[in-house]
C-alpha cells in the first residue's frame, strides 16, 4: 500500500513538473518555418501528392531507413529469442490444448485473404498519393497471413522465401539510397527517376518504389515475427 502511495506521489510529482508542457498548449496558428517549406515546396521538389510521404521517405528518409532497420533488428531479435534450439522448453505444454478455427472464421479468412493482400499492395503502391504507405501496406499484408494462422495454427510459412524477400527488399532499398547518392543529389534522393506529374501513380521519382520495397520488407518481417511467436506457443 505504501508502495502505491509512493508511486502515486511520484507520478503526481512528475505530472506536476511537466504541467508547463501539458497545459496551455493552444492549437498552432501556423506551420513552423520548416514545415512551411516542406508544404510549399515539397510537392514541387518531389512530386508527391502526400506530403507526409514526402517527409517520411525523402526529407527524413534516413529516419525511415533507420525505422526499417529497427524493425529488422527487432525481427532478428525475436527470431533469436524464440529460435528453435532453446533451453527453456516450449510454452505449449503449459497451456491447454488449442482448438481449430470455426467454420465462420475459416470461410471468412479464406475470402478475406486475397482481398487483404491486394489492399495491402494498393496501400503501399499508392503511398505517395494517398494516406498510407509502405508500413501500413506491410501491416495489412501481414494481417492477411495472421488470418491464415487463425485458421490453421500449424501452418508453416517458407522461411527461406520470407528471409529472401526481407533481405532483398532491404538491400534494394539501400541500393536505391546509394543510387540517389551517386546519380542524384544525395543519399536516398528519389529524384534520379523523373518526378512525373503530381497525382499519378508513376510519379514522385523513386518514392513508390521505395515504399513498395518497404511494404514488402515490413510485411515479410511482421509475418516472421508473428510466425516466431506462434512457433514458440
Amino acid at each position: 500500500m505504501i508502495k502505491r502511495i509512493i508511486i502515486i506521489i511520484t507520478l503526481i510529482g512528475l505530472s506536476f513538473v511537466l504541467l508547463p508542457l501539458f497545459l496551455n498548449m493552444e492549437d498552432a496558428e501556423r506551420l513552423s518555418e520548416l514545415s512551411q517549406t516542406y508544404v510549399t515546396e515539397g510537392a514541387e521538389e518531389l512530386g508527391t501528392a502526400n506530403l507526409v510521404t514526402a517527409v517520411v521517405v525523402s526529407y527524413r528518409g534516413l529516419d525511415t531507413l533507420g525505422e526499417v532497420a529497427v524493425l529488422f533488428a527487432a525481427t532478428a531479435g525475436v527470431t533469436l529469442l524464440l529460435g528453435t534450439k532453446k533451453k527453456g522448453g516450449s510454452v505449449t505444454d503449459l497451456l491447454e490444448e488449442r482448438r481449430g478455427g470455426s467454420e465462420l472464421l475459416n470461410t471468412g479468412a479464406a475470402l478475406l485473404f486475397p482481398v487483404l493482400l491486394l489492399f495491402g499492395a494498393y496501400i503501399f503502391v499508392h503511398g505517395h498519393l494517398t494516406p498510407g504507405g509502405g508500413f501500413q501496406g506491410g501491416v495489412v499484408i501481414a494481417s492477411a497471413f495472421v488470418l491464415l494462422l487463425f485458421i490453421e495454427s500449424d501452418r508453416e510459412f517458407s522461411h527461406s522465401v520470407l528471409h529472401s524477400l526481407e533481405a532483398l527488399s532491404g538491400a534494394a532499398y539501400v541500393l536505391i539510397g546509394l543510387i540517389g547518392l551517386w546519380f542524384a543529389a544525395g543519399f536516398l534522393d528519389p529524384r534520379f527517376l523523373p518526378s512525373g506529374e503530381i497525382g499519378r501513380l508513376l510519379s514522385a521519382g523513386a518514392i513508390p518504389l521505395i515504399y513498395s520495397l518497404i511494404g514488402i520488407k515490413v510485411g515479410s518481417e511482421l509475418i516472421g515475427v508473428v510466425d516466431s511467436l506462434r512457433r514458440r506457443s
Partner: protein
Amino acid sequence: MVSPLYILGIGLGIAFLLPLFEKLGKKIPRIITLITLMVFTLIAVSWVVMISGAVDKFPVIFNTIGFKAPFAISLQVGLIEALVLVMINTAALLSGLFLSLRKDSHWEGKQIVLFLTLVIGVNGLVLTRDLFNLFVFLEIVSISMYALIASNDEKHAYEAGFKYLIAGSIASAFYLIGVIYLYRFTGTLFIDQIVAMDLAALQATHPGLVFAIALIMLGLLIELKPFPSNGWAIDAYEASDPAVSAMISAVGASGVVFAFYKISSLFPPEMAEIVVASGAVTFVFSQLVGLRQKRVRRMLGYSSVGQIGIIVMIIGLQRILKIDDAQMIMSSAIILLGNHIFSKAGLFWLSDIFDQEQLRRVRRRPLMIVLFGVFLGSLAGLPPFPAFWAKWRMITVLAESDKLFLIIIILLGSLFEAGYLFRWFTTLLRDESDPGDIHEEQIPEDIPVSSSQTGVVSSTRALAALAENAGSVVEELPVLSVEDPTAAEKRNPVVLAVVAISSVIVIAAGVLLGAEFLRASNELLLLIPVAVLTAGILFDLLHLPHRIHLILAMAGISFYSYRILMGLDGIYLVFGILFLTGSLIQMISLYVKKSLHFGLIPMITALILSLGNLLISTTRLGFFFSWEMMTVLSSLLILRGRKASGAGLRYLLFSLGGAYSMLIGLMLYPDFSLLLQGVRDVSTPPVLAVFLISIGAMVKMGSLGLHIWLPGAYAEAENEISSLLSSVVSKAGLFLLFVTSSLYLIPLLPSGNIPVSVLLGWIGAFTALAGAFFALFQEDIKYTLAYSSMGQVGYMLLAFSLMTHLGWVTSLYMAVTHLLFKALLFLAVAGVLYRTKTRMMYQMGGLIKRMPISFITVLLSIIALSGVPPLTGFGGKWLLYTALIEKGWYLQAGVAMFASAIAFLYLFRLIHVIFLGQLKDEHRAMKEAPIGFLIPQVVGMIVIMLFSMYPSLLIGPLQRAVTPFFSESIIWEGYTVFSTLGYWNGNAVMYVTIGVFIFPLAWLLLMQRKHTRMVEQFNIVFAAERPDRPETTHFGYNFFAHYRRALGMYLTPWATRWWTGVVTLTDSLGGTMRRIYTGNGQTYAFQIILYGTVLLLLLRGGF
C-alpha cells in the same frame, strides 16, 4: 573524403543481406561482417588522418537527399566524431574477432546481424545531427542490445534483458516526449539550428522549453545508467555473454555518451550542474557499491557504470566551464572514453577466457598477468595509461576553476575503483599457498605460550576487511585448484592475441598521450621507465636469459644514473646517489637467481628509473607521474611475493590514497614547480595543501597512523625487493618533504606561530618509537626489519621537521646511512632466508658457524643501526640529539632516545636468535649465502667502515647540500665536528675503540693460550642435565615476554583498527547502498521514474 553515408548505407545493406549470405555458408556472414567492420574502421581512420591535416576545414556536414541541413537529415564529421568512431569501430572489430575466434564460438545467424546493426546504430548516433534521427538510431542500438543480451541462452540473461527493455522503453518515452515538444517550441529538429537560437528568449515565451530539453536529457541520461537507477544495466552486464557485455559496455554506451555530448549543447547551466552532480554521484557510488561486489562480471558492470558516470560529469562540466577549459576537459573525456572502451572490453574478454579455460589463478600465465595488469591499471587511471593523463588534465582544469569538491569526488571514486579492481587482480595473482591476508603469527607447538601473551601487538590480526574480501572474489568462478594439464588444451592463443591488441592500443595511446603531455614541459625523459618496462616485459615474454637481462638492465641504469647525476647538485644529488647508486648495488643480489623471473627485472629497472625521474622532473605533472609510476611499480613488485596478495593490495591502496592526497595538495598549491627548483617562499600555501602533501609523503614513509601497509609489504615481498623498498623507495617520501620543505613553515593554526613542521616532528618521533616497539615483538624476521625501517624513517622525519641546518644534515645523513644498514641487513637476512627457508627467527639459531660473513654483516649493521659508536650510526644519533636539543625539542629528543634504546633490543634479538644460540639439525649442513648476496654486503661494509672512520666524508657533502637553505651550524676542526652543544671526533673514537679493544684481546690471548677447548653446542651447564633438543634449548620465541607483560597493553594496533574500521565502514556503506538493487524490474522502473522526477524537480527548483 568518404561520405559517412556509406557506413550507414552499406552497413545496413549488408545487415539486410546477411541472412542470405548465411545460406552460402556458415562462416560467410562472419567474414563479411568482419570485413565490413574493418572498412568502417578504415573509413574512420581516414577521416582522422584527413582532419588532423586540416583541422580548420572541419567539421563537415553531409546532407541526405540533397537538401541543406534543416530540411533534410544531415550527418556531421569532425575530429571528435572521427576519433570516437575510430575507437568504437576498432573495438567493434576486435569484439567481432573475439567472438569468432574464441573457443566453441557460436557466433552466427541473428547474433551477427544484431551485432552489425548495433555497430551501425552507434555510428549513426555519433554522426547524426537530427534529434529525431538520433532517437531512431538510439532505438536501433537499444533493440540490438536487448536482443543480444538474450543471445546468452540462460534464464538470467532473459531476466536481465527484460529489465533492460523496461528501462530502455521508459527512457525512450521520455526522450520522445522531449523531442516532440522541442520541435513544437523551436520548429526544427536540427541540433545546430536549435543551438543557434536564443534559447533564453525562447524560454520566456515557452516556459516548457527547459522541460522539453530536460526530458531529452533524461532519456539519454537514463540510457547512461546513472546511480541509483541503474540496477537493470548492471544485471545485464552480469548476465549476458561477456563478449556481449563488452559490446554493450564499450560500444553501446560510448555511442550514447556521444549522443549525450551532442545534446549537451542545449543544456542551460543549471541543467548542466544537475548533470555534473548526477555523473559525480554515479561515479562515486557505483565504485562504492562495487567494493562489496564479489561476482566479477557484476563488478565490471559497476566499474563501467562508474566510468560512464565520470564522463557524464565531464560533459556537464564542459557546459559550465570557460570555453578553453571546456575544450580541455572534453578532450579528457574522449581519452577516458577510449580508455574505458578498450580496457573494459579487454576485461570482459579476459573474464570470458577465464570461464572457457576454467582458470582460477593466473600466476603462471605471464601474458595473462600483463593483460590483466594493463587493463586494470588503465581503468584505475594509473600511469602511463590514457586515463591517467585524462584525469590529470581534468583535475588541473577543475583546480583552476576551484572545484575542489569534484576533485575529491573523482579521486575518491578512483580509489574505490582501484580497490576492487586490484583486489580482483591480487586474487587472480595469488599463489595457492597464499591465505589472502598476511599470514598470522605462528605459535610453535613445542613452546607453550598462553594465549594472552600473543597477538597483543600482532598487527596482522585485525587487518583490513579488504584483504579478507580478497579471498572470495573469484570463488564463484569454476574451481580448479592447480592449473592442470588439461587446462593447457583449453588455451586459445589466438583469442589472447585479440585481447593483446586491445592492450597494445591502450599502452600505445597512453605513451603517445604521455609524450604529448610531457613534451610541453620538455620532460620526455620521464617516459623512459615506460619504455624500459615494455621492452623488459617483451624480453621476458621472449625468454631472454635472466642474467643477460640483468646485466643489460644494470648497464642501462648505470648509464642513466651517469647522465642524471651529472646534472644534479645539492640535495638533489644526495637523493640521486641514494636512489640510483643505492639501488644499483642492491641489484647485484638478483644475480643469484638463475631462471627467468617474469617481470622482475623490468619492473625493478623501471622503478629505479622512476625514482631517478622524480629528481629531474620540473613540473607537477612530471613529478606526479613519476611518483605514481614508482608507486604502481613497487606495488606490483610486492605482489610478486608468494603470500603478498593482501599486503600488495594494501600497499597499493595506501600509496594511491597518499598520491591522491598529494595530488590535491599540489593542485591547491600551483607554485609547486617552483618549489621543486629550490625557490622558496613563493607564496603562502593553504594549510590544507600542506597537510595533503605531507600526508602523501608520510604514507610513503610509513609514518605512524599511515603505516599499516608497511609491515606486510616489506615482509611479504621477495627479499631483494623488501630490501630495495625499505632502503630506497621509502626515502622517496623524504624527498618529497625536502622539495616541498618551505610549505611546512606555515602556521599550524590560523592564529599562532607553531609551524606545521612541529606536528610532523611529533609524528616522526612517535613513528620511531612505535616502529621500534612493534619490531620488538615480531617473530618473523622480515616483519622485524619492516617495522625497524618504519622507525628509522620516523627519525628522518623528525630530523627533517626541525627545519634547521643541523636537522636537515641529520635527516640526509640518516637517509644515507639507513640505506646502507638496512640494505645490508635485508641482504644478509635474504641470504639466511634463502638457505633456511623459514622466516621465523626462533626456527633459526646458531647460524654464525654456517654463515660467518652474513653474521659479520648483520653485526656491523646492527651496531651501526642502533647507533653504537664507533660505527657511523652513532653520527646520526649524535647529530639528531644535538639538533633536537639545539632547537629546543627536548621531549621529542626523549622520545627518540627511548626509541633508540628499544631499537637496540630488537636488533640484539635479531642477531641473537638467528646467529647465536643453538644450531638446528636441519641447518647443520647449510652453506654461506650465495656470492651474489655477499658482494653487495662486502661493498656496504667497506662503505660503512669508511664513513665511520671519516665522518666528514659523508657529513661534509651533506652540509654543503643543505647550506643554500640554512646557515651553517656545525664546523669542522680536523676530524672533529663541533656543534653549538657538543663535538664528536669519529676518527679518534675509532682509534680509541680499536685501542681499548686490542688491549683486552691481547690479554685474553695471552692468558687463554693454554688449554681452551672449543666445545659443541650442547656442552653447556644445564642444571646438571643435558639439553634434549636444540629447539627447546634455543631461547628465541617471545623473546621480550616481560616487555610485553609490562607495556603490551599500550601496543594495541590502534592504527590498524582505525583503518579496518574505515574499510569496514566503507564496505558496509557499499553493502547498504546496493540494497537498492532489489532485482525487481518494476522497482527499477520506479527508480527511473523517481529519478527523473527528482531531477526535473531539482531543475524546477523544488515545488
